[in-house]
C-alpha cells in the first residue's frame, strides 16, 4: 500500500506533483530540496518479490527512507520514487533484471519527509533452484562526480 504524502510529515518548504505509479495509480508527492547524506561505510539493502513489492529491508534502509519497517514491508518499491528520476531509468532496470541480468544505476530517492538521497544501486535477480524468486538491491555511496553528471543528464531524459 502506498498513500499520498502528507503535509504534516514533510520537513521544510515543499513542492507538489502527482506521479502515476505502475499498479498503484496516482500518488501525490510532496518534495523538498533537502538532501540527506549517504551513511558512510554502510549499505542500504532491500529485497522484493517478483512484482517489486518490498519483502526485506535493513536498518540503513529504514533510517534513510524515514518510513517504519511496517510501512515498508509489502509496499511497492516505488514508494521511494522521486519525481526527478526519469521513467526510462526504471524501464531499463526492469528490462534488465527480468532478463536475469544485473542492473546498476544512480538513483535519487524520495524520503517520507520529502527530502532526498542519492545512491549507486545494484539490482540482481535472486535465483533459487533455477527460478527467479525475487530481486535484491544493494545501494552504496555514489562518487560525487557521477552524481553531478546525473544531475545534469536526468532532466534531459523526460
Amino acid at each position: 500500500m502506498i498513500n499520498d504524502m502528507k503535509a504534516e510529515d514533510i520537513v521544510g518548504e515543499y513542492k507538489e506533483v502527482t506521479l502515476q505509479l505502475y499498479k498503484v495509480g496516482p500518488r501525490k508527492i510532496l518534495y523538498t530540496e533537502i538532501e540527506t547524506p549517504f551513511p558512510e561505510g554502510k549499505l542500504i539493502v532491500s529485497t522484493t518479490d517478483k512484482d517489486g513489492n518490498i519483502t526485506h529491508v535493513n536498518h540503513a534502509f529504514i533510517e534513510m527512507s524515514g518510513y517504519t519497517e511496517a510501512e515498508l514491508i509489502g509496499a511497492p518499491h516505488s514508494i521511494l520514487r522521486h519525481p526527478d528520476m526519469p521513467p526510462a531509468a526504471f524501464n531499463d532496470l526492469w528490462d534488465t533484471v527480468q532478463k536475469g541480468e544485473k542492473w546498476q544505476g544512480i538513483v535519487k530517492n524520495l524520503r517520507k519527509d520529502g527530502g532526498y538521497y542519492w545512491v549507486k544501486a545494484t539490482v540482481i535477480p535472486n535465483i533459487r533452484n533455477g527460478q527467479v524468486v525475487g530481486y535484491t538491491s544493494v545501494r552504496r555511496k555514489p562518487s560525487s562526480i557521477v552524481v553531478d553528471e546525473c544531475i545534469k543528464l536526468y532532466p534531459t531524459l523526460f
Partner: protein
Amino acid sequence: MSYMFTVSPDFSPDRLSGWYIFNTWMQRQLGVDIHLELYDDFCAQRVATYSDKIDLIYANPFDAAMLVREKGFLPLVKPKDQLDEALIAVSESSPIAKIEDLKANVKIGMTEDPNVNMIGMMLLESANLNNSNIEKTVYDSYVLVAKSLLRESNEAGIFLAGAFDDLSNMVKKQLRVLLRSEIEEIHHSLMVGPKLADRRDEIKAFLTGMNQNEKGQGVLDSLGFKGWDEVDDEEMEFMIDLMDTLAT
C-alpha cells in the same frame, strides 16, 4: 576414508594451533580421519578447492560464493559476533583527514584478501577512486600493510577490520582510521563439500552445541570464537547475492 579440511589463509597466525586443535576435536566427533591442510596464499587454496581436494572448509565470503555456486558446498555455521568488515587507514601524521582527500594515483597498500579488497574498493569509490586510478601494492600480511603506512611508502591501506583491531597498540597508535565499513551481512562460514554432505545436520548440531560443554568451549577459546551460529541455505544465498552486487 579420510577427508581434507582447510582454512581460509586470512586467519590470524595466533590461531594456527587453534585450527589444529579444532581439527582434532572434529575428528573425534565424526569418528573419521580429517587431514588439516593449510595453504600459504589464496591462490594455492583455490587451486586445491577447484581440483575437488577439499571436503570441509572455513571459507572467506568470496570463496564461499564460488564453493556454493560451482562446487556444491553447503553452509554449516558461522562464528558468533564475527563479521567481515574492511577499513581504510592512514598514518597518524598524514594530512589526509577524510576519504575524499585521497586523489587519483594515490598509493594504497593491501593484502591479497579478495573480499576485504572488494569492500575496501567500495569504500574508496565514493572518493572517485577505482582499480584504474590507484597505485596498488600487495603485501603478505596486514602487519606489513601497516608498516608501509608508517614508512610512508603508501598513503592509505585497506585492512580487514578485525585484523586491524588485532595490531599491537604500538602500531595502532601511529595509524588513523578514515572509514570503517558497516555492512553487517558478510561473514566467514564453515562449509561441507559433497563427500560429507550426508552428515551435514549432525555436524551442525555438534558445532552449535559446542559452547555448552567445557571441552568444546576450550576448543572455541583457542580459535577466539564465542560459539557457532547456524547458517541456513537462504542466508548463504542472500550473502552471495549481496557479494555479487558489490563485485562491480
